[in-house]
């Protein structure tokens, strides 16, 4: 939320967000596009960053916050150094994706949608990654792993450093 600052979080430099927003505004691009690029820059959308973007785009904060919470690709939390994404599409589901997700939750000690306290891991499930022929699919930091078994999960987790 705006203005809410936690003592453990360092002050965030919002100048890059302002720059991105200004650039897009000049080109008449939409707020969604701005937020996508800002998220690429920061890894997630913090309250401060959203405020800066709203100000720069001259829209109410609620509009930026509304978009950031409506679309699932936006994250209001920092993601871990290793971001693990489990596909829950139908093809993956019938091949046991739920078991894979549960195992990752057990092994990493975090629930889906959470980031570990040391910011090392974050775990997320998505509705379909479109690599259905290879189900179950797990994506670790943009690298796809197909036909994942629970044994593969052991290896995936062991390889995270």
């Amino acid at each position, binding site marked *: 939320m705006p203005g809410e600052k936690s003592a453990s979080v360092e002050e965030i430099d919002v100048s890059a967000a302002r720059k991105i927003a200004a650039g897009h505004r000049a080109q008449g*691009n939409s707020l969604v596009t701005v937020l996508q690029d800002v998220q690429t820059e920061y890894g997630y959308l913090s309250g401060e960053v959203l405020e800066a973007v709203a100000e720069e785009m001259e829209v109410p904060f609620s509009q930026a916050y509304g978009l950031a919470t409506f*679309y699932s*690709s936006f994250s209001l939390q920092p993601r871990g150094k290793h971001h693990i994404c489990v596909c829950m599409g*139908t093809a993956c589901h019938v091949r046991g994706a739920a078991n894979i997700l*549960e195992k990752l939750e057990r092994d990493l000690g975090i629930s889906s949608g959470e980031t570990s306290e040391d910011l090392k891991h974050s775990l997320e499930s998505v*509705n379909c990654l479109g690599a259905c022929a290879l189900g179950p699919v797990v994506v670790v930091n943009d690298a796809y792993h197909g036909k994942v*078994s*629970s044994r593969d999960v052991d290896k995936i987790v062991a390889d995270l450093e």
Partner: protein
Amino acid sequence: MTVATRLANAGDLASLRQKILAGRKSTKIAISVCAGTGCRAQGSMELFEEFQRELQEQNLTDVEVRATGCHGFCEQGPLVVIFPRKIFYRGVKVKDVPRIVEKTIRNNEVVDSLLFKDPATKKKCLLENEVPFYAKQQRIVFRNNGKIDPTQIDDYIAADGYAALAKVLTKMSAEQVIEQVSQAGLRGRGGGGFPTGRKWDICRAQPGDEKYVICNGDEGDPGAFMDRSIMEGDPNSVLEGMTIGAYAIGASRAYIYVRAEYPLAVTNLSIALEQSRSLGLLGENILGSDFSFDVEIVRGAGAFVCGEETALIASVQGDIGSPQQRPPYPAQAGLWGKPTNINNVETWANVPVIIDKGSKWFAGMGTEHSKGTKVFSLVGKVLNTGLVEVPMGTTLREIVYDIGGGIPKKRKFKAVQTGGPSGGCIPESLLDLPVDFEKLTEAGGMMGSGGLIVMDERTCMVDVAKYFLAFLVDESCGKCSPCREGVMQMHSILCRIVQGEGREGDIELLEQLAAYVKESSLCQLGGTAPNPVLSTLRHFRNEYEAHIKDKKCPAGVCTALVEFEVDEELCKGCGLCMRDCPTEAVIGEKKQPHKIDVELCIKCGVCYEDCPFDAVIAK
């Protein structure tokens, strides 16, 4: 690229094609490495680089190596096809590269171990079209996938690309284009099945000069990925189709809305846009005609509802993707309030072929009301997973068994789910159904975007219904209450049933709620949301009853209703389940039948899935 100068007219395009083709006659052998997302996940880009390195090292400069779009047979990836003979290698690894170059490229011999072995006949298949997975397919939309490098517009032009556009701009009026698409009988491949020609005509007839064209690349149905493969593997075919459509409608601007999850599609489309602009195939006065047109890519941000036309328009405008009441339809007042025509990726990719080969040719394929081919993503519990393009009217049995190779591990077929979360499950008794728009709907399924998810005896249909409703609860935009509240209520009833807390009357309550949600939701997301429940109830009511009355899950999926046991006669004591059990609940000596300690078992089902002998049974 050979040339980067603008093509001033259709003649220039034809000469460029001749020039490209002439330059290629010397390159007799081409190695095509599948670089679709599926094969990339299995290491095909490393393979591609290794081929380049090896060829260079061996000074084989006249051999071309090409990273192409998806070949479709993802299950067997990484795939390599050696042209011109079309020798088909599967499961190729980096270490195989020197052998392929030495034997096949240098000496025209075959590397036997990399050939596909037909499990039915035990025969090895040398060529791509001998592989049963490909033999029954008819690749129209996928005409170039697997052959051309999607990042080289020259490849597309060499394969007669943009010839249809040239024909349209030089020889056809807008009315003639619409007439041809209408006569071909092309219907929207995104799910609705609305006649494309009529859709264009309605938009064309609207007053005003400012009109828009949109390509819906928000392939949201879980289990479907054909649009992804087209955008990644043959982006120019989509652009050419859109340009022809825009000419017919009278639009000068277009947007391609691509899902957030498809970064490679965005990259390849961007390259295609840049290259076609530099050749004057997009932009001002295309091929020297009066027609100007350009396309922009919009990246989706992750919302299933944006597949719905009015929600998609809102999203392109940078707003929250919530649907609007129709009418007015997008054709009347769409993007920025202007007449807008939306078609999906596969529909657009069909357009150039229809113009090129004619409506009669296209209408010669398919059934009475569904013409042409359809790309299906054949996935789930089926041996040969991948993308399959067949003429409309092909039966589900041919797709699942002849092309798909049937169910793995000799398990029993149960159902095939079609049409994504709006669709339904089709049982074994309807396997001989010829697949077209009408027949699938009659059977309680839906064409949707073409996902075919095969389910076997170990798939629980109540769990599947719950899965889809959980998906829809998550993706409902929340604007109208029948969808927001009704689907959630249905989902909670299903949760209770799979937990073993189902009550007498729950099935009737589900049916009642389904009727309300269907009737009163604002958009098609809600209007079709009860379908997964209704179709599983229609064909698998006994499974619901087993959960509610007997407190049993016949498929052994719903953990609250299942206890796992080892069949001592089937167990070989291989120890696989013991190694994978997260709670050390499996006990026993090597090569002796194992046992499961019910106290320790958390019913995660790992042993049940793992066991190669099906010795773990669910009770």
